[in-house]
C-alpha cells in the first residue's frame, strides 16, 4: 500500500468576483502515489501547478475534486476535527522554498520548535522538548547552541533551510513535502540540503515529495519523478528513465535546457518560449501543443491520454 495516493486531483481557481469567472485549472486530474521511504519528485516549469498540489496535500487549499488517501485513509480536510488535524500534522510536514520567509523575521526561530512540540502534544515539558530539538538539529548538522534565541536573519539561507527541515522532523513525520527547497539556497550549499533528504530516506524511512524545477538535483535524489505541465502530469516514471531518456517532448525540452556545468556541452538549438501562462492553461487539446516541435493535428484538438511506454507513463499522442 502506498503511503500517499493522489486520485484525480483537480483544482480550479476562479479569478474575479461573483459576476465574472475566469477559470484556471491549476491542477488537472492529477494522479500519483508516493511509497514509503521514497523520494518522489514533482518537476515542471514555473506556474505549472506544483505548489498548488503541495498545498492541497498539506490542507492549505481545498481541492475542487479528487481524493487524497493517506495510509489508506481518505483525508477530508473540511470535516476534520481538531484531533484528526493534529494527527495529520504529525504525519505530514513541509519545507518551503524560501528559507527566509519560512520563519517570521520578527520572531525567534526556536519559538516555532517549541510551538510545534507543545501544540501537537509531542512534548509537555521544556526539557523534553529541548531534548527532541537537540536530536533533530543534530540530524541536520546544526548545534543547539548556535540555534537558540536567534532571529532568522542571523542565519544563512542554507542554515535556515536545514533548520526548517529540522522543525519538520520534530514530529517524526512519514511524509515530508518539500516545495523547491533548494531553489533559493546557494549552489555551494545546495547539496547539503539535498543530501539531507537522501539521509532521511535512508536512515529514517521518511518519504519526501520533492518539488523542484532543478532536474539535476531531482535526478540526484529521487526514485521516481513526475513532470508537470500546466496542471497535467505529462510524464511519470523512475527518475533514471524519465531523465535519461525523456519521452514527452516537454520533458525533453526541460532536460535539454538544464545548463550543465561543463563548458563542452553548450546549447545549440534555439527554443521557442511560452506564450502567456493563461493562454496555455486555457488551451483545448494538449497544452504543450503551442510550443511542441513535434506537434500533430490531433494534439491541438484532443488532450492526450496516458500511454505506458517502457514503465513510464506519458501523456502524449506520439506514443499512441
Amino acid at each position: 500500500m502506498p503511503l500517499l495516493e493522489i486520485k484525480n486531483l483537480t483544482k480550479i481557481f476562479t479569478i474575479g468576483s461573483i459576476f465574472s469567472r475566469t477559470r484556471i485549472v491549476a491542477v488537472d486530474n492529477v494522479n500519483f502515489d508516493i511509497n514509503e521511504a521514497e523520494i518522489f519528485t514533482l518537476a515542471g516549469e514555473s506556474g505549472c501547478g506544483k505548489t498548488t498540489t503541495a498545498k492541497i496535500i498539506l490542507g492549505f487549499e481545498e481541492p475542487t475534486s479528487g481524493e487524497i488517501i493517506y495510509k489508506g485513509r481518505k483525508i477530508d480536510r473540511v470535516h476534520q476535527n481538531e484531533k484528526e488535524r493534529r494527527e495529520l500534522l504529525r504525519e505530514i510536514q513541509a519545507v518551503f522554498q524560501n528559507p527566509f520567509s519560512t520563519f517570521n523575521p520578527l520572531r525567534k526561530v526556536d519559538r516555532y520548535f517549541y510551538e510545534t512540540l507543545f501544540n501537537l502534544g509531542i512534548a509537555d515539558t521544556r526539557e523534553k522538548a529541548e531534548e527532541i530539538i537537540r536530536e533533530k538539529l543534530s540530524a541536520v548538522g546544526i548545534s543547539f547552541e548556535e540555534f537558540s534565541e536567534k532571529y532568522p536573519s542571523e542565519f544563512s539561507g542554507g542554515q535556515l533551510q536545514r533548520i526548517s527541515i529540522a522543525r519538520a522532523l520534530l514530529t517524526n513525520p512519514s511524509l515530508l513535502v518539500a516545495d523547491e527547497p533548494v531553489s533559493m539556497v546557494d549552489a555551494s550549499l545546495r547539496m547539503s540540503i539535498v543530501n539531507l533528504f537522501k539521509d532521511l530516506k535512508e536512515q529514517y524511512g521518511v518519504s519526501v515529495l520533492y518539488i523542484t524545477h532543478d532536474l539535476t538535483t531531482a535526478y540526484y535524489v529521487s526514485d521516481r519523478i513526475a513532470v508537470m505541465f500546466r496542471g497535467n502530469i505529462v510524464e511519470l516514471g523512475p527518475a533514471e528513465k524519465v531523465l535519461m531518456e525523456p519521452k514527452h517532448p516537454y520533458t525533453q525540452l526541460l532536460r535539454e535546457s538544464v545548463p550543465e556545468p561543463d563548458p563542452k556541452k553548450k546549447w545549440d538549438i534555439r527554443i521557442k518560449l511560452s506564450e502567456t501562462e493563461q493562454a496555455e492553461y486555457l488551451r483545448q487539446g494538449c497544452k504543450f501543443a503551442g510550443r511542441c516541435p513535434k506537434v500533430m493535428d490531433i494534439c491541438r484538438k484532443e488532450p492526450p491520454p496516458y500511454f505506458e511506454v517502457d514503465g513510464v507513463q506519458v501523456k502524449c499522442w506520439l506514443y499512441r
Partner: protein
Amino acid sequence: MSFIKRYLLPRLITYFLVIWVGITMIFFIPRFLPTDPVQQFINRLVAQGTYMDPKAIEEMTETLKELYGLKGSLWEQYINFWKRFLKGDFGPSYYQFPTPVITLIKQSLPWTAWLLLVTTLLSWIIGNILGGLAGYFSNRRWVKILDSIAMVIRPMPYYILALGLLILLAYIIPIFPIGGGFAIGMQFTFSWENLLILLKHAFLPALSLILIGVFIWFQAMKLVVQSVKSEDYVKYAKMGGIEEKRIVRRYVIRNAMLPQITGLALSLGQIFGGALITEIVFSYPGIGTLLYNAIFTGDYNLLMGVSTLSILLITTSILLIDLLYPLFDPRVRYR
C-alpha cells in the same frame, strides 16, 4: 459588456448599498435628539416676544406637527422620506417652513460647491506637487523650511488660522472684504468686474482652506514619495541615467499619486463638514451654516437634504475614481 457585468455592476451595487446605509443612519440619528423641531419653532416665536397665550401654543403645536408630517411612527416617516426622496423632494424645511428644502439647498449649494471644489482640488494639486518634490529632494534646504512651515500650520486650529487671516488681510491691511460672497447690491450679470468681486470675496476663505489643505497633502505625499523613492524601478531608472526631472515626474510622482487619488475621493466627501467653520468665519453664503442651523433647530428635512447630498457626492466621487482608477494604475484592471 463584460466590463459592465464584471466591473461596473458590482461597484454600482455597493454604491447603492452604501448610500442606503448612510442615508438610513442620517435619518435615524437626529431623531433621537431631544431637539424637537415643532418646539424649536414655537420657542423661537415666544422667545422673540410674540405674545401667545398658553392655549394658543398648544393648538399650534398640533397644527405644526400635522403640517411637518411628523405624525405617525418613525417607520412611516422613514418610508415617506424614501418616497419623497425618489421623486427628488426632501419636503419642506421646518425652520423655514414651508419653503422646500430643495430651494434652500439650491440657493446655497453653488457657493459651497465652487469654493470647496476649487480649494480642494487646488490644495490637492499644490500639496502633491510640493510634497512630491520635497519627498524626492528631501535633503534640500527649502524642503526643510517647507517641512517646518507645514508642521506649524497644519495643526493650527482652523478657526484661529481663518480668523487670523481675516484680521490680518481684512482689518490690519484692509485689502479683502471682511465677509460675504459678493458685493452688496451686486447684480448677477456676467462682467469681468463682477468676476473680480467674486474672486475677491472668495480669496480669504479659499486661502485659509488651501493653506491647511496644501500642507495636509504635502505631508502625506512626502511620505509616500519617500517610500516610492526606494522602489526598485526608481533606483533602476537612476542607475540607467535617466534625467532627474523625468524620474521625478514619470516614476516617482506618477506612482505616488495613486494613493493620493483615493485620498482625494475621500476628502471630497467631507466637503460640507469642512465648509462649516469657513462659512462661519467668513460669512460665506454656503451650505455649511445651513447645515449648522439645521442641526440646532432639529430641521430634519433640511438635515436630511444636506447630508444626503453629501453622501451622494462622496459615494459618487468614490465610484467615479474607482472607475477611473485603472486609467492611472494599469495593474488594476477592469476585470
